[in-house]
Every structure is written in C-alpha cells, then in structure tokens.
C-alpha cells in the first residue's frame, strides 16, 4: 500500500470510524446529526448505511442523558463514540463526564470501566460568538480519569481516533473546525498513535513554539515568519493534553532557552499554565524565557475585527516570540496567508 496517500482531516476521521466499526462490533456512533446529510463534516457520513441505523444514530438534544447513555453502554462493554457539534455543548453534560465517566473505574476499584470517546468540535471559523467557540479542555486536564487528545494533522486524526476508541478510558477528542478540510498523508491501514506523546513538527534551535490543535498552524506559520528574521523556531504539536507530554516540551525549551505556549482557549489555568508551571518546578537547566498566549480574557465577540484581536494568530505568535528573543515586534513580517480561515464561509 502506498504510504503517501493524501486525505482530509474529516475523511481521516471517517476512515478511522469505518475501520474500527468493521473490526469491532462494540463500536458505535451516536450524536446529534451524525446520520444527516452533512455527517459532522463528513466524518460520520453514511456510516449507518454500512453498519446499520443502530450503529450510527441521531439523538435528541439532550446531552446529559445521551452522555449517560454512552457511559452506560460502555459499562456494558460497548465502545460508544459520542459526537458533539460544538464543545460548548459539553457544558450541558459536565456532570456525566466529570462525576460519572471519570469516576466509575476508580470508585469501583477497577470492577468497571468506561471505554468511550467524546468527540467535540471547537474553535473559531465564522462569527461563532461567545457560546459556539469555546474549547474547555483544561477542565478535562484538571480532573483525573480522562484522556484528552487534540490532533492537528489528518494523520493524527485517524491514528488518534483509533487509539481513542481502543483505549479503555473516557477520551475527550477535540477537533478544530478549521482543520476538517486540511489534507495530509494518512496511512490506509488502521493504526494507533501513542497516547501521551507530543509531536515535534518542525525542528529549530532558537525558540520552542507549542500549539494545541489549530494554534499549531499558527505556530508553524509564525515559525515561517520568524525564519525570515533569522530566528529558527522549533514547533511542537502538543497533541495529547492528558496525559500531558511536558517532557518533550521541556526538553526542547531547555535546548532553545525560549518557549511560547499558544493555548486554544484562555490562558488562565490552561495547558500553557501547566507547562510553564512544570518548567518552573524543573530544577534541571537554565532559566528558560517563557510566555503564554491564548484567547483574550473575555467572552468571544462575534464581529470579525474583534475576533482577530481575540484569537492568537501567526503574526501575534511570531511577535511574542520575537520579543521574548529580544527582537523587535515591529520587525516581524505581517503578510501571511491563512487560506482555511479565509475560505471558511458561513453558514456554519
């Protein structure tokens, strides 16, 4: 099989589901609209036609009960994949996630387990506003019991989803809306990525840029801008938020001496906070110069011009990095293309 096959992120997710459903009849998909004509950005499209309406089905708008149903099915040995159109909606079912899914295995001292996947879309795109743009992953990093994955590449979308399905814990699986159309090399055979491992996407020696999901693309573009200034940035895709692979990040930061973590949410008590705290605790090396970025500390405004100020982007990341390196923010080139952002149009 050729190992240079190109697939979109959405299709990679679809292939992962397709293959796992074929391999293991305990895998099923439930969620609002999963069997509709859009099939969650194509990722669940027509799976019910292949595997029957019991294994890819629409549900009432009742996130708390549906999450509970998925948990109950998992207790009985099934491997449900519960899809949410927006991560904001997880706020409706936090009780089932935090008080039930994350607790059952431990409180029964291992008698039961909850092998379920909770897929949720996050992020900006098109005026999503305050209630349709949040990515509450720090909640699930904070509470023990979860695995949290946020793949950026189509490769990791597929390998991550398969690993998530096969894992015996509740896995929060985070998909940024602007990534679905991105393409990349994806092996055809089923494969798993290793949970708990970050991925170095670009080698560099001057500064370490760490992103989460879509902000990885900001970091990559920032690295391109910084390269024009002669700054050689290493870019790390955090990928696994729980377990958190701070080792890879800290090693890189100790090497470069500079670190910027770009959260895909607010910075307070975010992944960047956790990583910088570990850096602070780490007595080993030199004192790394470190900074965090993320959403502005407000609710998300709807209008595009304020969105641009609210979200980190390639230029603001590069500027932060430049300043940290002692360079002038004003020297950072500002022309950078973000086709997926420009091309993403409503209505969604």
């Amino acid at each position: 099989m050729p190992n240079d096959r190109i697939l979109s992120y959405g299709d990679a997710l679809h292939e992962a589901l397709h293959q796992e459903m074929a391999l293991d009849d305990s895998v099923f998909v439930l969620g609002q609209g999963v069997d509709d004509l859009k099939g969650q950005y194509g990722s669940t499209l027509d799976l019910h036609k292949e595997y029957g309406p019991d294994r890819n089905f629409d549900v009432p708008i009742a996130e708390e009960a549906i999450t509970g149903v998925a948990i109950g099915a998992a207790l009985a040995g099934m491997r449900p994949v519960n899809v949410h159109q927006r991560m904001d909606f997880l706020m409706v079912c936090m009780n089932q996630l935090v008080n039930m899914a994350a607790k059952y295995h431990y409180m029964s001292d291992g008698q039961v387990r909850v092998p379920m996947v909770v897929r949720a879309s996050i992020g900006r795109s098109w005026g999503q506003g305050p209630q349709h743009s949040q990515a509450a992953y720090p909640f699930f990093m904070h509470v023990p019991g979860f695995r949290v994955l946020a793949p950026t590449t189509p490769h990791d979308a597929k390998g991550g989803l398969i690993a998530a399905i096969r894992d015996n814990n509740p896995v929060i699986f985070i998909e940024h809306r602007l990534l679905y159309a991105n393409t990349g090399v994806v092996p055809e055979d089923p494969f798993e990525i290793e949970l708990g491992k970050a991925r170095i996407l670009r080698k560099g020696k001057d500064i370490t840029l760490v992103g989460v999901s879509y902000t990885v693309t900001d970091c990559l573009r920032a690295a391109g801008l910084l390269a024009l200034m002669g700054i050689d940035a290493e870019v790390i895709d955090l990928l696994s938020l729980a377990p958190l692979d701070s080792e890879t990040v800290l090693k890189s930061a100790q090497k470069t001496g500079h670190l910027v973590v770009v959260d895909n949410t607010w910075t307070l008590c975010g992944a960047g906070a956790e990583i910088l705290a570990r850096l602070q605790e780490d007595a080993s090396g030199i004192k790394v110069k470190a900074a965090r970025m993320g959403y502005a500390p407000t609710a998300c405004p709807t209008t595009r011009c304020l969105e641009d100020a609210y979200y980190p982007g390639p230029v603001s990341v590069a500027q932060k990095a430049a300043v940290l390196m002692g360079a002038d923010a004003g020297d950072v080139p500002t022309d950078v293309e973000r086709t997926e952002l420009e091309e993403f149009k409503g209505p969604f």
Partner: protein
Amino acid sequence: MAMGTSSFDVKRAYYLERTIRATEEKIAEIYFTDKVKSPVHLSVGQEAIAAGACTALGGDDVVFSNYRGHAHYIAKGGDLNSMWAELYGKANGHAGGKAGSMHLVDTKVNFMPASAIVASAVSNAVGYALALKMRGSDARVVCFHGEGAADEGVFWESLNFAALKDIPILFICENNGYAIYSKQQDRMAGKSIPERASTFGITASRADGFSAQAVYGAVSKAMAALREGAGPLMIEVNTYRWLDHVGPDDDHPGGYRPQSDLEAAQAIDDIPRLAAQMDADDVARIDAQVADELAAALAFAEAGDFPDETALGRNDYA
C-alpha cells in the same frame, strides 16, 4: 403600562411580517458577499408567529428569544438600523458587533440577549418572571423556543419550577417539526409537548402558527390571563421553516424533508393572506415603507465603523 393593541391590527401585522421577510430575504441575498460574518438562522415562513405574538404585548413586557431571533426582535419593536449594524459587526450595532445575529439584545425594547444554546434561556425567562412577580410588576415575560428545546431536561425543570411557584409567564413553542435536520418524532417519544407540559402543571394550548391573527388571539388571551394572576401558560404553534436551519439556502434538495411540505406551507403563507384583507393602497404604501426602512438600515450598517480594538476589553466585567 403600555398594552398591546386591543384588537388584531392587520396592517401592523402585515408591516411586521413584511419587514421580517424583507430583512431575512435581504440577508439571504447578500450572504454570499460575506458582509454578515456569522451563522444566520432565518425565520422565513415563520413570521406570523412573531408578528401575532408581539403585537399582543406591551412595551414593558419582556421577550426571551433564541439564535433564530430576528423575527422576534423586529416584532417586539426593535431598531432595524442597529440590528443590521449588529449583523454587519459594526460599532453602531446594538451590542457593538459582539452579539451578532445569534445574540440579538436590546433592553430599550425589553428584548433580552438571545442564547444559542438550545433551551438554556427558558429558565432565565422563568427567573426574570419570578423577579417581576416579587417586585409586583405588571410586566409579563414571553419566552419563545423551538420544539427542539423540549428535548432538553432543563426545559422540563423550568416548566416545573414555573408551575410550582405559580409564575406568570407565557411559553411560546414554535414547532416547525425539525431541529436542524432531525424530525420531532425521531427525537421525542410519547405525547405532544402541550400534553406533556400539562402534566408539569402548565396550562397549555395550541394555535395556528401560520396566522398572525390566530396567534395574536391566543397570545392576547394568555396575556390577559397572566395579568389577572394566572400561572404559567404555554401555546404551541405549528409552523414551517422555508429555508435551511442555518444559512441562506433552500435545503429541500437535501432530501430530508419533502418539497411538498414546503409547497403546503407556502400555500398558506400569511403575508398574502393578510394583504388580501387590506386595501391595495395600504399594501403598496406599507411595502414601500418597508423597502425604505430596509434600505435605510442597510445604509446605516454600511456607514458604521467597525469597532476598534479597545472594544475587545470593554464590558468584560460589570
């Protein structure tokens, strides 16, 4: 306090429905230009409900709506200019562009910020009505919601609490049969929403959502009862969404609902039915007025500036 008109005002209803329709059609028409950079949930086909219900309200009465809120806002007496500016994301929008289409808000006309989380404003509406009751106010609260809101448990909790505390509030359930592409019967078992609601202590009835006059009649009666001290009431109105759940398109080619349903709904469209009850002169005059006002609103929005970056941090905390 200002009360609604004491009998159904055909011209006013026609004016409102035309304004809503024209606005929504304009949004759909220009959506490809990307001037409105956010999801839009249009009410084309559902105008009669907003027009009928809101003309039965007084200015002090408070409306809770949702992401599909353009019609409610306009019918409640909202400002077309600031609404269009808001859709454009401009500083002269009523929330300076922060709210956008999904979160219309205007306390000047007692229109609370709309929520895009299904069912979640229902309990807020109940709480608002509780506060008015505690204050001895004459104003009443009306809460619009889709039939999909009844999927959520909090909806039933809210009804229960309203009934338990005998809170004067009117729930208007706009039943268009679908939540996005999902049919009501694929999400809801058992009896109808009003039948369920009545077991939660709510006095529930139905009205013809294709007729502003019918809705007006039902809502007027309900408001009168609420003002006389009645506890929570619900009116379920049947309706039909002509366009896609979100965005400007006709989604019938997608095949999840039959074209014939659209045709049936269009055959009983309230706008021509109202027009048929009016003098041709009035119709023409109102049509012209609507066109003028819409053009003015668009011009207002176009002329507005985008907010500058300092607006980002404004009103982060109260």
